[in-house]
């Protein structure tokens, strides 16, 4: 018989409802405005590791389903919205596993006037309220790699990172030596991240390599670093935040660099979001923002190891 039953227990459904209410309470008391923005867009993210779904209306041109609400939320900020948050569904093609579902729920918020350090403080308070977590630990990306993998992630060459992966027993992987970021991602997922956020203390990993800035400001220095952070509990990555890039021209150059990389890799080349660039040109206030996966937060709250246990109906091909 066709399997139709939910994979989440009644208790998990109730915890989800409770979590949503607690998140809304948290932001209401802080005067952060809840907003809604469209799921469908005629432009898409250019990040080479995020694939957008296409939605085809009958007889019309297709739209992209958002991979995060970041671009329209930044347009609201540029229009003077002040601090805002959103809880919405996002869609990422090809992401499916015990920790991934191609359609999942994000909590995303932006704080004008905050940098990424101040936003980490607020995330820490949210995790304390929602999960009863102890105060978070903070570790720079560089310190974490030095501690867990005995290598400097900002200075090591691709060949050195490959060699480190081999000596750590991760094995040979079909990445080119020139793909430095690929090797860093391999070491992060296999060696560094599993050790982050243990004993009830979440862990903030911050100041990423400039090559992994995504939409974060790059802080000049030797070497420069991206003002980006991620938060981990029990090795599970919960969210990704930035001290947001506000420079329209630099943002355009990053989009163009992504698209050039996509062309080299034979990936789809979606149109970049000109409405975001226009908003940045008009002026995005200095701000920090973060997206947190609520399904993963629920996994931690319930001690579940499979995302299917917190979703009524997970995507199962």
């Amino acid at each position, binding site marked *: 018989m066709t399997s139709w039953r939910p994979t989440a227990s009644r208790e998990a459904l109730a915890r989800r409802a409770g979590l949503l209410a607690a998140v809304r309470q948290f932001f209401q008391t802080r005067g952060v405005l809840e907003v809604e923005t469209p799921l469908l867009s005629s432009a898409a993210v250019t990040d080479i590791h995020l694939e957008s779904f296409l939605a085809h209306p009958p007889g019309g041109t297709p739209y992209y389903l958002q991979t995060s609400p970041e671009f329209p939320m930044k347009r609201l900020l540029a229009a003077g919205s002040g601090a805002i948050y959103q809880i919405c569904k996002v869609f990422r093609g*090809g992401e499916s*596993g015990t920790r*991934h579902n191609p359609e999942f729920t994000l909590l995303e918020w932006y704080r004008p006037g905050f940098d990424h350090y101040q936003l980490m403080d607020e995330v820490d308070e949210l995790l304390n309220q929602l999960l009863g977590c102890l105060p978070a630990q903070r570790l720079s990306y560089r310190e974490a790699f030095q501690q867990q993998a005995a290598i400097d992630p900002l200075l090591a060459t691709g060949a050195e990172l490959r060699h480190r992966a081999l000596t750590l027993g991760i094995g040979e992987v079909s990445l080119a030596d020139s793909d430095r970021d690929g090797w860093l991602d391999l070491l992060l997922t296999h060696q560094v991240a599993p050790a982050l956020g243990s004993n009830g203390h979440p862990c903030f990993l911050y100041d990423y390599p400039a090559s992994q800035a*995504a939409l974060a400001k790059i802080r000049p220095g030797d070497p420069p670093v991206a003002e980006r952070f*991620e938060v981990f509990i029990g090795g599970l990555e919960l969210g990704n935040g930035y001290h947001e890039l506000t420079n329209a021209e630099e943002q355009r150059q990053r989009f163009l660099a992504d698209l050039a990389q996509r062309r080299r890799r034979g990936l789809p080349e979606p149109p970049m979001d000109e409405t975001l660039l226009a908003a940045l040109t008009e002026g995005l206030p200095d701000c920090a923002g973060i997206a947190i996966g609520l399904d993963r937060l629920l996994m931690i709250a319930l001690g579940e190891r499979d995302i299917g246990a917190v979703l009524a109906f997970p995507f199962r091909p």
Partner: protein
Amino acid sequence: MASFSTNEIKSGLKLLLDNDPCVVLENEYVKPGKGQAFNRIKTRNLRTGRVVERTYKSGDSLEGADVVDVELQYSYNDGDHWYFMDQETFEQYPADREAVADAVKWIKPEDVCVVTLFNGAPLTVAAPNQVVLRVTETDPGLRGDTSSGGSKPATLETGTVVRVPLFVSIDDLIRVDTRTGDYVSRAKE
């Protein structure tokens, strides 16, 4: 043989890794928040039984292995090979010592075994979980003793020695569990 992308690989799929057929036990998708996705694929080598886990870049493609399980009837052995027959086509499949491995301790002609074929040739042979074999040699038992816990060695018609209860005698048929090598019961003709 077809090849499979990392996102199509599910447990149970047979892959060719380093020229050996392997069965997929687990395929775990691993991806940082932003960045390169990987698949950690755990497999068991069907020839050696060794379990290994390897990491692939998501989207890499891996070659499938032509591996099938078939029920074949054991016919005879000529010293080098053990011959198994498809009861419908009467095709004969010679299995070498490595393929039959421990199964030789238990099988006799006409037994039906599950034979795993790799590229059409026997890779492994699994004896039935339980077999009935005749005792060819054992010390005389204690007459009438059908309950005491004692045991003694007995040689079976395949040459294998197992522990049996004291009441078992030469020419008795006994049922043996091939997974543990334990005596199960006496059996009828």
